[in-house]
């Protein structure tokens, strides 16, 4: 298997990123000035400081924390909701499946990023009282989560519906039904266990897409609000100084691209493991 080492590298990078996301921002407060502006890398500030004198390494790690947190939470929502709707549409009566297909068709014709921006516009101006009890950074990133979750779930539901449709026609399902198993048994014991592999692989690639979308929103200035850092907003900030301080631009770009690459490698690797036919088709 040629892809095995890519899979290993991807997993390794993601673990390193998680560790960095947990312990990296502890050293400095990422929202406050901790030194002079535009310091070069040194023992105290590993990647130097930015245009407001904030530690770049700590901000980079905090960006990883935001991206991973949003990526994972949006995917968890997407999988849960997608499984519910997709299984119902695939296993249920034909009209429910058709309804879902028409709905997802319509959602595909709506540009993702535009819809996310529009939803962000509403969510950012709504304020609910229970949000006050949450930490500030969580309540500030909730609109991003909401927008990306709303945009993301239809394609997952569609995928699961198609998987369920092809599973439903297989002989072991028929055999199970013929033996008198109720629908609930078929769905929970036969169909859902078969879905996990594909869903997990797609969720990895989907997480990469969510991280990209979060980056786009933050780059446009409507994602994670300042002063909290996100890779997208760090890139946007660094643009103004890129002629004199290109490294400020390079680090978040590198982090984001590598993270997305790693997620894609892991997703491909998982798919090869769970769907050997696909691996045989594409592996040289």
């Amino acid at each position: 298997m040629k892809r095995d080492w890519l899979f290993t590298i991807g997993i390794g990078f993601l673990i390193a990123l998680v560790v960095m996301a947990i312990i990296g921002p502890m050293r400095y407060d990422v929202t406050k000035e901790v030194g002079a502006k535009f310091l070069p890398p040194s023992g105290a500030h590993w990647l130097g400081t930015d245009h407001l004198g904030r530690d770049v390494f700590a901000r980079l790690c905090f960006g990883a924390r935001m991206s991973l947190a949003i990526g994972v939470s949006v995917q968890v929502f997407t999988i849960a909701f997608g499984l519910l709707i997709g299984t119902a549409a695939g296993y249920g009566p034909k009209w429910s499946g058709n309804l879902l297909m028409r709905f997802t068709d319509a959602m595909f014709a709506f540009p993702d990023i535009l819809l996310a921006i529009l939803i962000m516009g509403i969510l950012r101006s709504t304020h609910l009282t229970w949000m006050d009890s949450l930490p500030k950074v969580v309540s500030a990133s909730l609109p991003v989560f909401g927008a990306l979750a709303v945009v993301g779930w239809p394609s997952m539901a569609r995928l699961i519906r198609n998987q369920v449709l092809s599973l439903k026609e297989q002989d072991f399902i028929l055999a199970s039904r013929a033996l008198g198993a109720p629908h609930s048994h078929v769905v929970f014991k036969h169909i859902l266990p078969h879905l996990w592999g594909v869903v997990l692989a797609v969720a990895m690639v989907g997480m990469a897409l969510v991280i990209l979308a979060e980056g786009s929103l933050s780059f446009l200035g409507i994602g994670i609000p300042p002063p909290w850092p996100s890779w997208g907003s760090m890139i946007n900030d660094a643009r103004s100084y890129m002629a004199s301080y290109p490294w400020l631009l390079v680090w978040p770009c590198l982090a984001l691209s590598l993270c997305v690459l790693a997620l894609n490698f892991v997703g491909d690797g998982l798919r090869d493991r769970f769907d050997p036919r696909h691996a045989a088709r594409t592996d040289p």
Partner: protein
Amino acid sequence: MSSAVDTLIAREPSALKPIVRLIFVRLLWSVPTLVFITFLTFLIGELAPGDAATALAGEKASPEAVARLRHSLGLDQPLLVRYGRFVVNACHLDFGQSWFPPYRPVGEIVSEGMGFSQMGLLALAAVFCCAAVWVFVRFLNALKDFRAVFWFGALAVVVVFAWQIAQIAISMPQGRTGPLAIYAILLASAMGVFFGFIAGIWHGKWPDRFATTFSTLGVCIPTFVLAPVLVLIFALKLQVLPDTWVENPKEGVFWYLVLPVLILAMRPAAVITRLTRASMMDVLSQDFIRTASAKGVPFWKVMTKHAFRNSLVTVVTAIGTSFGFLLTGSFILETFFRIPGLGLKSIDAIYQGDFPVIQATVLLFAVLFILVNLLVDLILPLLDPRIRGSAA
């Protein structure tokens, strides 16, 4: 049994019928889609703070004046009534006017941002180019004949027309979503088809490794990373390309276009490479390729005439889908370079809360997306007769 065969035979002579049916069915299905999308946007506008009255009356207006204006604009009517009025107006291609100075008609803003006139001219130029190729083939066929003179004259006329139209299109402002998408899809198709083709032929060797790496990177590196990094390298460090967009440069429009088009083309090129490669490999593993090679057809002829032509269905689908995404998704790039296309205009409209512009943009994007996909489905039966029967 026999009746099924009869209907098959009866259907066979006219290839036109299923196509008309396809167009009809798809356009009919697009109506609920469009209603759903516009209603969703309408609801979002309803939930967002501010409306036409507060925007038009200005910040200093008294609440009474705002209420009066709201009543005179009919904004105090029920939601469905206002939505119905929007639909009726939209059917007349009347999208109202912008809520902010200079209060331009929305249809004008949107069509200017999309660059419909340039798109039309470019499409016309493309038609003339196709005609030129066709006439050139006729000219070659007629070379030993006196009719070659006639075909040569026709060729000259067509080439001159194509050149003139392309000239007009290029002399117009280029910073519009439509022309940029067209240039980007041309570049992306050329790159993607070439890389995918060589990767499929030398599968597992270095061209394949190169193409696979390229497609993986192209999919993983987003516009908002690629754009600043390329500007940093080519404009600020090497200083070979301009670093900002200039609306109507005196000379060298081409150089201003290089970076935006390259950045736009990267992702579609990656997608097209990946799908072309997969499709080529799929076709190359089939029996008729081995048969063709075994009976002594030259290698390149097998690759182009047998393998590539059969992988075209996937390739064209990939190109069409990518074009749809290019037309409706260049927000980041246009915002980065401040190119005054529809992407930048709609982002600005969202920041301002200029709702009619958002509504019209969403509708236009959805219509374009549906039309491009329909166009792809119309081209596919021309490439693969097997699809013809099941078209609708």
